[in-house]
């Protein structure tokens, strides 16, 4: 059952009970007050009649000392007639409670008569032939006799009023309940709207629409819940996006890996197949064997690089303070400006660096720098200048490698750190590249909480740099104190 419906139903039940009780109590109270008033009047009338009877009895000629039964009847009939307009009904009984006179239609039983004596008055409410009466009874002392006078007063009106009251009240209650239902329905659906919105958002999210958010329409607890839910959804969406990106990256990697793996494998299998099944002349045999060798080498390079990346990703680096100078000296030794233009590294290397102490794993950082220099060489013409520099900055110590080579368009910059990505394959292949160098650099730098920054202009050159934590100041302080 829906929450709003439950709310509505319970409200209506409570409202119906409350209205019912209060209505019943009210109508009954009015009824009882009226009945009491009628009873009081009935008793008053009874007293008046008693008095009237006694007066009449005194006025009887004195020749009789004893009040005759027929005289009593006479007086009673007179009394009844005098009150004709009020519809008065009375009964007179003698000492033995035998009826001496009774009006037409005076038919109640003698229960009340049995209850009264000389000293007590009594009354009761009775129902005769569908009419309600208040029956009163009292003793009358006339001359020497004790008679009992009973009256009947028609109070059907009071009862009818009560019935009418109930009827009217029932109608009012039904109308009130109908109105109440409509209003409560509106209120309930207004109150539960945040819940419905939340439910919809949950469903949408379950269906995979992760950027859907619940609309916040109130500032109460439900509004707070919506707010919290949206925050949760935000966090969830972020995680899911991250996961999706990771999966995409993995798929890309697997795809690229399969391609890079299958190409040399096809060559190796194909040439080996030719060698074993065809009679080839010497030249073709050499060509085939050479391809098998070079493609095998390519596989080897690739697997070593992949291993490096995996080791970096899972390995623990041994961080220590390293002087920037030692790193640059190592590079200087490796990449010398070579006069021999035939050599692989025949570029002009220009080194400039500030003194600094960086927090790093030195062999890893050297790998990164070698890769960057290697790339710079591949992008440059023989004899071109490659600038290698180290500079102190606010953020730390910046290593940068700048070439004046072919550069690359902006769209390529995002992709170059992806595994197996090569801008110019044939060129990279001829330099025995596997497209994994910058991937490795990225892994190493992320271990150092750093990343590659690439600026490049097509045709003018590329500058690749990264920042490491500078420990020089801390080091100096220790030395000075």
């Amino acid at each position, binding site marked *: 059952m829906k929450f709003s419906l439950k709310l509505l139903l319970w409200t209506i039940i409570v409202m119906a009970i409350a209205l019912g009780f209060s209505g019943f109590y009210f109508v009954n109270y009015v009824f009882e007050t009226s009945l009491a008033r009628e009873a009081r009047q009935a008793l008053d009338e009874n007293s008046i009649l008693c008095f009237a009877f006694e007066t009449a009895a005194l006025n009887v000629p004195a020749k009789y000392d004893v009040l005759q039964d027929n005289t009593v009847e006479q007086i009673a009939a007179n009394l009844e007639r005098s009150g004709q307009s009020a519809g008065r009904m009375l009964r007179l009984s003698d000492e033995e409670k035998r009826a001496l006179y009774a009006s037409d239609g005076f038919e109640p039983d003698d229960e009340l008569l049995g209850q009264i004596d000389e000293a007590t008055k009594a009354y009761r409410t009775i129902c005769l032939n569908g009419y309600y009466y208040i029956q009163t009874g009292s003793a009358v002392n006339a001359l020497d006799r004790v008679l009992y006078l009973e009256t009947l007063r028609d109070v059907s009106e009071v009862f009818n009023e009560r019935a009418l009251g109930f009827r009217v009240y029932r109608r009012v209650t039904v109308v009130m309940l109908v109105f109440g239902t409509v209003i409560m329905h509106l209120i309930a659906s207004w109150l539960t709207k945040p819940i419905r919105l939340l439910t919809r958002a949950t469903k949408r999210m379950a269906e995979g629409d992760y950027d859907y958010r619940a609309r916040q329409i109130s500032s109460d607890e439900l509004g707070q819940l919506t707010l919290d839910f949206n925050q949760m959804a935000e966090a969830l969406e972020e995680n899911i996006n991250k996961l999706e990106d990771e999966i995409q990256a993995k798929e890309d990697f697997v*795809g690229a890996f*399969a*391609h890079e*793996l*299958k*190409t*040399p*494998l*096809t*060559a190796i*299998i*194909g*040439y080996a*197949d*030719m060698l*074993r*099944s*065809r*009679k080839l002349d010497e030249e*073709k045999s050499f*060509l*085939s064997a050479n*391809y098998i060798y*070079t*493609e095998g080498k390519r596989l080897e390079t690739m697997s070593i690089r992949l291993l490096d990346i995996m080791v970096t990703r899972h390995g623990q680096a041994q961080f220590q303070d390293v002087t920037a100078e030692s790193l640059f000296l190592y590079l200087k030794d490796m990449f010398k400006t070579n006069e021999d233009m035939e050599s692989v590294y025949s570029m002009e290397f220009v080194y400039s660096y500030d003194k600094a102490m960086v927090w790093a794993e030195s062999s890893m950082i050297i790998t990164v720098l070698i890769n960057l220099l290697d790339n710079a060489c591949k992008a440059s013409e023989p004899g071109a200048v490659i600038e290698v520099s180290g500079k102190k900055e606010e953020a730390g110590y910046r290593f940068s490698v700048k070439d004046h080579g072919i550069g690359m368009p902006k769209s390529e910059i995002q992709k170059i750190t992806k595994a197996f990505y090569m801008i*110019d*394959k*044939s060129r990279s292949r001829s330099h025995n590249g596997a497209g994994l160098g910058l991937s490795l650099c990225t892994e190493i730098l992320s271990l150092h909480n750093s990343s590659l920054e690439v600026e490049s202009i097509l045709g003018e050159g590329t500058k690749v740099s990264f920042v490491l934590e500078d420990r020089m100041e801390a080091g100096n302080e220790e030395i000075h104190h």
Partner: protein
Amino acid sequence: MIKILIVDDEKPICDLIDLNLSASGYRCTCVQNGLDAIDLIEKENYDLILLDIMLPGADGYDVMEYVRPLKIPVIFITAKHEVRDRVKGLKLGADDYLVKPFDVVELVARVEAVLRRYNKADKMLTVGNIVVDVEARRVLKNGKEIVLTNKEFGLLVLFMQNKNVALFREALYEKVWGDEYFGDSRTLDLHVQRLRKKLGWEQNLVAVYKVGYRLEVTE
């Protein structure tokens, strides 16, 4: 002579295909990127294009878009193994699909099959005094018809398409019988013996130790 254009950015693969198809009597041209391929297709008439998908310049799908109106048969060569990649290639109008790494025999067979579909393959295979009409499934020796069973005919065509190539028992069995080879069957040897006898090829169909058979032809 049938001219085939090979488009692959990997030179070793290009050379591999070139060597094998040339040995089967096709004239091959190699090109290493998509844009050059389109230039060449514009200038020359090719009977078949072998097209790699991952290419610098224009990729295989782009080249395919260009080739389709020319009605030149195309076989895609790719490392992508996924069904959706294959479907994409075939939907674009490729005639066949070759997944790296591939067997040389498979390459030759697929090339033959596609060319035959376009009625470009030599319908008549000739070795010495034996002439085979592949379409009509007739074998003539010195102009006289020789009756062969289905399997024998299949074997003969395979040998004639791969002259001087040692064909492995597995490959022969899989191509002709279409079953997995389990290595214990004498069926193949029996059929080869029947072929030798019927064609008088006792000297030409040579058993290669531990490999299979080779049709030796002196040209």
